């Protein structure tokens, strides 16, 4: 045991010295994304949010960096560790949840199923372009009447005698839907058919006749991200459009696990941005003749935020190490998403309070993060659904239905 006297100082921006847990390569990925976000996202994201848009050109900038499908191997992907992917999500979401959502959807929800379950032709056709950001993907699972219980979906895939497929149905809340070149769409097959009504995944070029993707307007959250409906009316696809190597709900759920893993890191990024904004604001804003950081109530808020953000990040890194070691379990991803997104919302709320009236404008990042996190709380499994997953894992009793 070391009897060295303890050091006194900590870094307010890394109070638990988590940088010490990262490899040189992970630090380089982290620092590169942080710089990119500072250069390319933060200067404009308030404007994108205000306008309710996300510029398509960003896809290529993400691609050039290697962010898209970064944790996949081959087909133009960088093949980094899962932890490095998580750190990239964290830095992106410190910019905006919309930017992180773009990367999550492209890499984990659209590229991952093609990479994991696709045919060689599907991989060759789509993955290199998607990694480069010249083709954008989306993931269609949720429907107007099927959210937390996706197995209740109504979108159908009918197979014709020649092997071709015909898709019909409506998908809802689909990130990147209107700007996508390709949609990975999940649909139920004919109960009488060879798959006995099981869910199958389809790779659908968005210029296929019968496919349309109207934008969903009037969102108050995640405005720097395009959210759409997918309407499939007699969309005729060749036999080779089905993802050949997965049948049933395991397909979409394994994609969601990949994306949720990025989100549990990402939420820490949004929370960190709020904490840092509140910290610097509180040191500069003077009331009653002193910086507001000198009041005990403010210090309590800052202390709780710093602890929440950095213990959440520590949890993320631990889960990242487990994913890289191949030992991560699904309920552990739920624990991470549940804990960190709820944490981030609390931190954002406190930070907003510290900024006073400035806390409600887009001149500061805090309220943007605060409202964005409401989407993050709901998508990729709501807080309640993850609670039930963990509850099921703890008790052995499923309480979903």
């Amino acid at each position, binding site marked *: 045991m070391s009897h060295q006297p303890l050091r006194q100082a900590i870094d307010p921006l890394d109070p638990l010295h988590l940088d010490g847990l990262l490899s*040189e*390569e992970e630090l*380089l990925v982290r620092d*590169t994304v942080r*710089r*990119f976000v500072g250069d390319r996202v933060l200067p404009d994201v308030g404007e994108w949010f205000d306008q309710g848009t996300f510029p398509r050109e960003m896809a290529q900038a993400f691609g050039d*960096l290697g962010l898209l499908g970064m944790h996949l191997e081959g087909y133009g992907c*960088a093949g980094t560790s899962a932890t490095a992917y998580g750190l990239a999500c964290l830095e992106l979401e410190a910019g905006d949840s919309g930017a992180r959502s773009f990367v999550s959807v492209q890499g984990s929800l659209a590229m991952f199923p093609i990479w994991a379950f696709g045919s060689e032709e599907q991989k060759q056709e789509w993955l290199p372009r998607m990694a480069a950001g010249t083709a954008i993907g989306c993931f269609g699972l949720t429907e107007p009447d099927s959210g937390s219980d996706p197995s209740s979906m109504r979108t159908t895939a009918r197979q014709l005698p020649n092997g071709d497929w015909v898709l019909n149905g409506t998908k809802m809340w689909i990130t990147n839907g209107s700007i996508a070149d390709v949609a990975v769409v999940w649909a139920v097959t004919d109960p009488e058919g060879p798959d006995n009504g099981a869910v199958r995944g389809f790779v659908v070029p968005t210029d296929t006749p019968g496919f349309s993707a109207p934008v969903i307007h009037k969102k108050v959250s995640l405005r720097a991200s395009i959210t759409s409906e997918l309407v499939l009316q007699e969309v005729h696809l060749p036999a080779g459009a089905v993802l050949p190597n997965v049948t049933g709900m395991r397909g979409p759920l394994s994609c969601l696990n990949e994306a949720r893993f990025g989100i549990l890191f990402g939420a820490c990024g949004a929370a960190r941005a709020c904490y840092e904004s509140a910290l610097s604001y509180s040191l500069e804003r003077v009331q009653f003749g002193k910086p507001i950081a000198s009041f005990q109530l403010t210090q309590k808020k800052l202390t709780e935020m710093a602890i929440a953000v950095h213990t959440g990040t520590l949890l993320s890194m631990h889960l990242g190490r487990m994913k890289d070691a191949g030992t991560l379990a699904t309920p552990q991803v739920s624990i991470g998403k549940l804990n960190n997104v709820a944490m981030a919302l609390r931190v954002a709320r406190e930070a907003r309070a510290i900024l006073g009236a400035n806390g409600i404008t887009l001149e500061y990042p805090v309220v943007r993060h605060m409202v964005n996190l409401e989407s993050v709380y709901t998508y990729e499994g709501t807080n309640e659904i993850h609670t039930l997953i963990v509850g099921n894992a703890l008790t052995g009793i499923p309480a979903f239905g």
Partner: protein
Amino acid sequence: MPSTVVAGSFCYRRVTVGKLSYMNVVVCVKQIPDPADPGALDPTTKTLKRDGKLILDESDSYGVEMALQLVGDSGEVTLVSMAPNGEVSGLRTALAMGAAKAVLVSDDALKGSDSLTTAKVLAKAIGRAGDYDLVLAATESSDGYTGTVPEQIAEVLGLPSVTFAKSITVDGSSIKVDRQTEAGYDEVTCPLPAVVSVTAGVVEPRYPSFKGIMAAKSKPVDQVGIADLGLDAGAVGWAGAGQEIVEVVAAEAREAGEVIEDDGEAYNRIVTFLSDLKVI
């Protein structure tokens, strides 16, 4: 016609490398304490403490970028660095940007080296980098600011030296350099090989791509000590320094500015102030 200057006044030799279809560029890069972390001076040596993590000096990222642009797909960029404790993290950044390999000189005996010694050591290290056509360096480092090392390297290697480059184009066995001056720029033509210092901010350094970061792990870093370079411990470091830091004093605090209350006529005071400074 803009004035064309041939790098004179420096000792140089002509080397014919023919039409350069394949080009090797050596870039001298310094790894420095992160400027974002408040640095500290060692009171006994009066030099910057360098025992923590070092990063790639931003001034050098411009040289790395320029070198990568010059070689394109047909050539190689080699990094040369002198740093304590076998530090490689700054080199990894530049390798991740696309440099092919690095030579790192790290030796306890180098502590206290002045800029001329640094130039001699780097010149030797450049000799290990293989055949090269061009050596680039930053005009000055962000932590030392002596701004003399590139010219000294040129002298030691007996190569022409061009300073303050804002752009470089290769033309057969020579280069054309736009050399920044206070009034504009000179167009300088110079035979290769040569040593050119690159002004900060003249190119946009690329982000290291993730593929580059993954590849950087396995790129060779040739780590050597002074003995490997055929240098003697007595000729480098504190022992060999021809220069001594006698005293370090705090910079004078800036005088408080003048606050002008605007009574509707304040603009006149500003105009007077600026014309007194002769800026308008």
